[in-house]
């Protein structure tokens, strides 16, 4: 770290890199440009990573050593001599069922990310949850887990969590809150709840959806608004355009041989990505002659996990993806308007791609990314239709989110109401909207205009600072709830530990608004499912659902729909070299909710290997053009707003696209998140939340230290990782002979009479999600080291 951080010669020598790549002499596997050209900085860094033995400057003299040894010897024998220890042994009065001291119990539950459930098994040691794994019975995980599932256990024990109900900064309790708020709730009834607003994030919980419906029925003039900084808004808009009604797309990657991703990070970004990774991996392994290995084409606007696993990848600006999509659609016979592909990266493989897709009708898949506009999604559905994929690799289901089948307002509607002064009570169910709202809405200025703001969240964050009442939320391991996965499968979320603090769940807060201040989450959820259940023996069905982690039969069935409306005419395309900004959820912090989780802060992001900060990701060509070096602080100006961040040169980033990640630069909410990164929400507008051009980038002359593990663990010239072509391997399975070490050893040879153990990782299936890294840290409770 020392040598390359403040080096003024950090400016990239593009010529040297180009020469090295062109000559073919360079390394086939490299982790950074420094590594590739073996620059002086890199070689020094490698030397510093494992410094030679430090000199024993303060070594003990022999005499002192013996003195210390003697003292410890004196202590050694004394402690076990006491005949009567005087210890007490205290058993339970009524022991918990099935609990064997020292052995863990596993409970099935679910964790939600962006509202969508992922089934988990929680390991509980003597009543305390200690580890989370995937639930093998749950379709969204099949026993696998991702980084957020692994790290979320740390959030349960986070000391920075909100612990008490607070009224404008003063500690109170739930009874104070209900007593003080009941008259206001009663007053709302006067004009049918016209002053009541509920703001939630994306929710899939059937119970909560039902409660909110009941609330809106009780207060017909109240409104429910949803806002999610990440979410699937573009996808839903695309479905509305293509089908005229809300539907969700569910993909089956295990049936797809040729996959085209139009800026879709399906291995990380979408709900269901964990299952998609798994299914993709199944077809990626070199199976016997019966099944073909799959092939992934990706066009994307930043280097993502999916792109890093692609067989063919092109980096385009986000706005060019639509042109590419139209070009492909046109070749497949869909009327998609003109597409000028001159100079488009990846244009040279358009024809082979289309041939591949056509020759695998019914076994191909076209998926559009969550940040692409509705038109691209509609085009993707139309292409799947033309290729006969619908019903095979893509199925369409009813929408999973209850908000799509209820009249909900948007955040800008809420801001309008706030500014008009018509909001008496605003109840915010988690989400930290003051931090995540688009900058042009000025939500933080409008929020205080509500007469009463009640905010439920786990941390005392930016929104809690502006709320009148802050209710601490329970962690998902402490509460009763339910949620639906990407395919509709519903799981009951059951607690594994009593709430550690005075937390309440969203169900309990909404129940209070419905007139039941002391309702318990368990009763609410159970009552909902009992009303829904058609089983003869509800108790048995309930116990079965809790034991399995899924409610049988809740996966949404495929709906036979066909894309009807043709994709709209293409919008005017701007100048090809206008600089574009791209907003992405952060690969380890997501939208900011995990910013106080030190494991995730320290986890190197899969591709940039950055820790503890976010960076402005630019392509090497752009860096050369603007004279940017790693760790330069630049000012990004977009639509009149500016934010400053440190640059990181990312190979694979498209030439004219600058990627910024969301979730950093937070000002409140815990000790871990202080001073990390810059806040990209400050320049994110609501009209173009994902990408747009007109970005200006300007060097400030300052530098900022970024901690990255990019150059760690260099192989230093040893040939440890071998690669080969699939065809080469098929012809000669013995391409990589087993090597024996013939060096003599002092140790006796190991004998394995019964069984020998080993661990194999199928690197074909490894996508680089880093869940294994976090799982190791969670299992072994390794401490983090911090940025320095």
């Amino acid at each position, binding site marked *: 770290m020392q040598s390359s951080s403040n080096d003024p010669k950090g400016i990239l020598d593009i010529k040297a890199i180009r020469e090295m790549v062109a000559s073919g002499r360079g390394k086939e596997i490299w982790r950074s440009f420094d590594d590739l050209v073996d620059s002086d900085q890199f070689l020094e860094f490698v030397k510093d990573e494992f410094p030679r033995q430090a000199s024993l400057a303060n070594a003990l003299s022999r005499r002192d050593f013996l003195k210390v040894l003697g003292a410890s010897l004196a202590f050694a024998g004394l*402690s*076990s*001599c006491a*005949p*009567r*220890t*005087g*210890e*007490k*042994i*205290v*058993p*339970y*009065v*009524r*022991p918990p069922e099935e609990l*064997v*001291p*020292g*052995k863990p119990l596993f409970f099935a539950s679910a964790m939600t990310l962006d509202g969508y459930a992922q089934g988990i098994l929680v390991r509980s040691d003597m009543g305390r949850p200690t580890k989370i794994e995937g639930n093998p019975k749950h379709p969204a995980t099949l026993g696998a887990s991702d980084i957020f599932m692994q790290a979320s256990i740390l959030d349960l024990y986070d000391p920075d969590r909100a612990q008490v109900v607070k009224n404008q900064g003063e500690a109170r309790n739930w009874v104070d809150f209900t007593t003080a708020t009941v008259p206001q709730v009663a007053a709302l009834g006067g004009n049918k709840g016209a002053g009541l607003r509920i703001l939630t994030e994306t929710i899939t919980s059937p119970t909560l959806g039902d409660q909110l419906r009941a609330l809106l029925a009780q207060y017909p003039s109240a409104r429910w608004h949803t806002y999610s900084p990440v979410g699937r808004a573009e996808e839903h808009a695309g479905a509305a355009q293509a089908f005229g009604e809300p539907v969700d797309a569910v993909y089956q990657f295990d049936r797809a041989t040729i996959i085209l991703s139009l800026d879709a990070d399906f291995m990380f970004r979408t709900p269901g990505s964990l299952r998609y990774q798994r299914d993709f991996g199944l077809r990626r392994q070199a199976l016997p002659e019966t099944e073909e290995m799959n092939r992934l084409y990706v066009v994307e606007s930043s280097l993502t996990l999916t792109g890093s696993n692609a067989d063919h990848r092109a980096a385009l600006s986000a706005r060019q993806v639509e042109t590419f999509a139209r070009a492909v659609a046109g070749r497949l016979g869909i009327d998609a308007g003109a597409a000028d592909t001159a100079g488009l990266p990846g244009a040279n493989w358009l024809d082979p791609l289309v041939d591949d897709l056509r020759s695998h009708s019914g076994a191909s898949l076209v998926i559009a990314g969550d940040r692409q506009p509705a038109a691209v999604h509609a085009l993707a559905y139309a292409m799947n239709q033309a290729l006969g994929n619908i019903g095979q690799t893509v199925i369409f289901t009813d929408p999973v989110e209850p908000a799509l089948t209820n009249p909900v307002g948007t955040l800008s509607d809420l801001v309008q109401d706030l500014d008009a002064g018509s909001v008496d009570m605003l109840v915010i169910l988690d989400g930290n909207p003051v931090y995540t709202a688009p900058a042009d809405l000025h939500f933080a200025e409008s929020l205080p205009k509500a007469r009463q703001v009640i905010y439920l969240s786990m941390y005392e964050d930016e929104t809690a600072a502006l709320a009148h009442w802050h209710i601490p939320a329970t962690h998902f391991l402490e509460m009763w709830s339910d949620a639906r996965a990407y395919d509709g499968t519903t799981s009951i979320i059951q607690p594994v530990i009593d709430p550690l603090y005075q937390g309440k769940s969203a169900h309990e807060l909404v129940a209070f608004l419905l007139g039941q201040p002391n309702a318990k989450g368990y009763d609410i959820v159970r009552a909902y499912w009992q009303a829904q259940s058609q089983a003869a023996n509800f108790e048995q069905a309930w116990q079965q659902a809790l034991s399995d982690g899924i409610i049988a039969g809740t996966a949404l069935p495929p709906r036979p729909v066909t894309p009807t409306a043709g994709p709209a005419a293409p919008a005017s395309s701007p100048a090809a070299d206008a600089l574009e900004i791209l907003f992405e959820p952060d690969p380890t912090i997501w939208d900011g909710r995990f910013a106080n989780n030190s494991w995730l802060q320290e986890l190197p992001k899969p591709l940039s290997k950055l820790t503890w900060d976010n960076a402005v990701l630019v392509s090497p060509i752009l860096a050369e053009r603007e004279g940017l070096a790693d760790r330069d602080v630049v000012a990004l100006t977009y639509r009149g707003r500016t934010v400053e961040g440190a640059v990181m040169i990312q190979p694979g980033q498209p030439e004219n696209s600058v990627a910024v990640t969301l979730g950093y630069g937070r000002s409140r909410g815990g000790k871990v998140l202080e001073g990390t990164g810059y806040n990209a929400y400050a320049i994110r507008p609501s009209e173009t939340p994902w990408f747009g051009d007109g970005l200006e980038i300007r060097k400030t002359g300052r530098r900022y230290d970024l901690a990255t593990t990019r150059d760690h663990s260099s192989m230093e010239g040893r040939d440890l990782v071998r690669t080969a072509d699939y065809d080469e391997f098929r012809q000669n399975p013995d391409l990589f002979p087993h090597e024996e070490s013939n060096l003599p050893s002092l140790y006796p040879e190991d004998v394995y009479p019964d069984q020998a153990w080993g661990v194999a990782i199928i690197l074909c299936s490894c996508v680089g999600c880093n869940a294994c890294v976090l799982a190791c840290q969670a299992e072994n409770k390794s401490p983090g080291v911090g940025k320095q």
Partner: protein
Amino acid sequence: MPQVFRPGANLFARLSIAALVVVLGVGAVVGLVWYPRSDLGTGVNDPIEQPFPYSHALHVGGLGIDCRYCHAMVEKSSTADIPSTETCMSCHSQVATDRPTLQLVRDSYQNGQPISWNRVNNVPDFVYFNHEAHVAKGVGCETCHGRVDTMNVVYKAETLHMEWCLQCHRNPAEYIRPRANVFDMGYQPQEDQRALGEQLVSEYKIASAVQLTNCSVCHR
């Protein structure tokens, strides 16, 4: 100048030094060797008073209740357990419901306060002892805990010192009994213990003495 010391003073000095050495030696032997192994020093055979007079002699010897009815975790867990109040109440909600000596149990069940027993058999905190492993490999309850079925008040039957544990760990065949007899009190081996022991050691896959006396088996 007259002599300060009488002629016999040299002899006296030598004898007293010798006596001192002998006393120190005997003291060392007594204090460091004999005492830590004695009943006085280890608390063996010394009954420990408990919050109320639970009698194993009555329940195990007299009524014939198996060890596992109360100490249910010995076969499943590394930590042995003392029965919960609920276990006592499983019988005493119907049997001897008026007896005054059981008031503590009834109170505990009623108000949720656990009974604080005084520990009899214990090993230091730096030792990891796993009950499940021993019971599964054929070490009888009686081998370490003595004839519990004759104890009115429980006393420690063995020193539980490392030296004592090593006796068996170095030579398991001498002490192992068939799994079916682990919970028997007053068990006498039928055949020659040596021969039976050797056979059981190989049948139960008990590790060799070298492996069993590895430090990290107990000191984890």
